């Protein structure tokens, strides 16, 4: 399929025409020929490189009632993503070459996005012994990101060994920073709101203490460390300190931690229950500033679908997590673009180029250059709508944004030259398979 995109504004602010052919950007300029091409009029739209999520839960294998590789891929495409990193907490856990190869090949088969499996750091996520990191790295899935996400690698010795070992395979350990003893039974951010609601608190120090320990371990070992879903102002300070010392640490923030606060828990609506929890307004602002000044490197969704019954219950009985792929760009626009803190070239960096670099995913180095893979998103920042279940393309309806007005609209997503979203609608599996 040949596609001609007219009038798109690139992240650098220039406007151009693009011809996409054979999966790559074939031509770029003005007055390009439309002969035989599908023409997309992108006048007024923002072109972005295909978005790369470093933190997605696809749930397959094992939890297909929540999400599958197919439905999660569709959710990703709907949000403008062309690659996702699928977290390891599946059943069986992604801790062997066999499981990660299966997940990667399911992604390839469906063809909506590149599915990059994340390997477990420890066998069965049990935090006791290292998983087959080498085998996963050398498998067809080529795993580079290792994480026990959902659980913290809390044993300091094991964390040290993981950092040292992963370095041998050009990998990175992505840490879910949560000191387990300080968060036993924790339900929400510990503070003024938890005190009133009578919900057990998840103190900021439980995150910050692990990050402080781990940046020092990264310094000691010289290994790469990535911190998942930073949520507190104190964590930002620790990362800032570590980077100033030249420690090889990168950090991510979720869209929801850039917008929402623990005040929402007052409704006891379990859609707002997430781990790490929604924090205070001061934290939200510190995270936005840290993303703007580069202390935080990337935005990642922590897309965590759950079936209805996991949220239709009392707060402390509910599962942690919210879906986030479909709303990520809208929420990021509202929280940091519309506030003037980040421009679209920054968005291209924090949602595409840098997450690809951290995950050692190639093809995202020079988007829009002739010869580069055609992974891109056309986005209308001037649009606005009330976010509803109609915006969701995965299985999960556990979005905290339902009923909330959000700016922007993903108009088209193109993955390897194939449109996965056109006119704001996710294309069918058959259409995507035909190319």
């Amino acid at each position, binding site marked *: 399929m040949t596609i001609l995109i007219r009038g798109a504004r690139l992240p650098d602010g220039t406007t151009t025409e693009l011809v996409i052919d054979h999966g790559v950007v074939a031509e770029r300029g003005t007055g390009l020929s439309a002969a035989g091409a599908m023409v997309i009029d992108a006048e007024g739209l923002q072109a972005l490189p295909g978005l790369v999520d470093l933190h997605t839960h696809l749930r397959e294998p094992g939890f297909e009632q929540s999400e599958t590789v197919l439905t999660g891929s569709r959710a990703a495409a709907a949000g403008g993503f062309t690659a996702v990193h699928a977290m390891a907490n599946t059943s069986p856990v992604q801790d062997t070459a066999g499981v990660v190869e299966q997940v990667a090949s399911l992604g390839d088969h469906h063809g909506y996005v590149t599915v990059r499996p994340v390997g477990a750091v420890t066998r069965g996520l049990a935090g006791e012994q290292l998983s087959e990191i080498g085998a996963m790295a050398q498998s067809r899935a080529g795993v580079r990101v290792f994480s026990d996400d959902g659980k913290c690698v809390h044993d300091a010795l094991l964390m040290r060994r993981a950092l040292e070992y992963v370095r041998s395979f050009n990998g990175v350990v992505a840490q879910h920073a949560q000191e387990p003893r300080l968060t036993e039974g924790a*339900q929400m951010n*510990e*503070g*003024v*709101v*938890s*005190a*009133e*609601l*009578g*919900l*057990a*608190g998840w*103190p900021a120090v439980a995150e910050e203490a692990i990050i402080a320990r781990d940046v020092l371990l990264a310094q000691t070992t010289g290994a790469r460390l990535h911190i998942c879903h930073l949520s507190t102002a104190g964590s930002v300070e620790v990362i800032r300190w570590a980077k100033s010392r030249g420690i090889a640490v990168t950090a991510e923030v979720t869209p929801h931690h850039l917008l929402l606060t623990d005040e929402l828990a007052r*409704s*006891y*609506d*379990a859609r707002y229950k997430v781990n790490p929890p929604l924090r205070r307004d001061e934290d939200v602002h510190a995270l936005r500033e840290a993303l703007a000044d580069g202390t935080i490197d990337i935005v990642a969704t922590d897309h965590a679908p759950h079936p209805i*019954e996991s949220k*239709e*219950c*009392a*707060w*402390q*009985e509910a599962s942690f997590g919210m879906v986030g792929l479909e709303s990520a760009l809208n929420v990021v626009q509202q929280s940091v673009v519309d506030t003037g803190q980040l421009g679209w070239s920054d968005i291209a960096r924090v949602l595409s180029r840098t997450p690809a670099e951290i995950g050692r995913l190639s093809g995202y180095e020079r988007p829009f250059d002739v010869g580069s893979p055609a992974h891109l998103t056309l986005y209308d920042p001037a649009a606005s709508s009330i976010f509803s279940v109609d915006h969701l393309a995965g299985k999960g309806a556990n979005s905290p944004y339902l009923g909330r007005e959000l700016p922007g609209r993903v108009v088209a997503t193109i993955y390897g030259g194939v449109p996965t979203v056109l006119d704001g609608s996710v294309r069918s599996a058959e259409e995507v398979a035909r190319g």
Partner: protein
Amino acid sequence: MKHLLSVRDLDRDSAITILDLAEDMAQVATRAVPKLPTLRGRTVANLFFEDSTRTRLSFESAAKKLSADVITFSAKGSSVSKGESLKDTTQTIAAMGIDAVVLRHSASGAARVLADSGWIDAPVINAGDGTHEHPTQGLLDAFTIRQGLHGAASRGRDLDGVRVTIVGDILHSRVARSNVWLLTTLGASVHLVAPGTLLPTGVENWPVTVSSDLDAAIADSPDALMMLRIQSERMRDAFFPHDLEYARQWGLHDERFARLSPDTMILHPGPMNRGLEISARAADSPRSMVLKQVTNGVSIRMAVLYLVLSGATTEAPV
């Protein structure tokens, strides 16, 4: 009143209305036939997902004194154990035909979730939700304090200038939370005394004063001293070293009781750990309001059931 979920939904006037109505209900108990026909034909469902014999019996007694029918669901142990879904259970009971739900649940916010869910139409009365609130306990405590101060002249009065000290496990106490909000709404000043481990982070934003010194609080001669139940399993979680240490530091033992002003009322939500947070001498003294609290609890619950089931706001049925 549609539901009673939190005392924070009550302003001063509506709280006083409930207390005054409970005064009327208390009068019923003095009649030859201590029962009103007011709620005849109405069914109250006691849904106790967490064991609480006292609160359940109190609501049951209140409903029966108003001639309502009562059906009771009791889940053994914790409702958080899987299979006992709040939604399924309440919808099942509601399908049998009920007019109000009295909900006790181990999860904070369970009553709010049920009231907001649309799963059932019936009004919801929160009979204790996790470590969040226990609104009828707050009301009965306010009622007891008011009556202790003003006796038969209680009607219409608030608690302006009244000083109440609450001692013990504030962190895990729904009773403390309901009392803090309601007593301060009514004009009382509230002082909390607890070890640092049993005070919630964020308590500094509450409209109270806080200290860890029970002796100083006793020397201050509050109008009411409320001792909270301490669960000895807390010591396994390192909230305090040991029962004896707790009793020494934060218990109303005989020696402290002897120093207590003769005008200070002693309250305890029950059940008491005699010898731990309160000595037998203090618990059984004339200043102890513990049994009055139980009696008043029935009057308060009659008032709340009446208001919720009649949809009324002010007018008394008596």
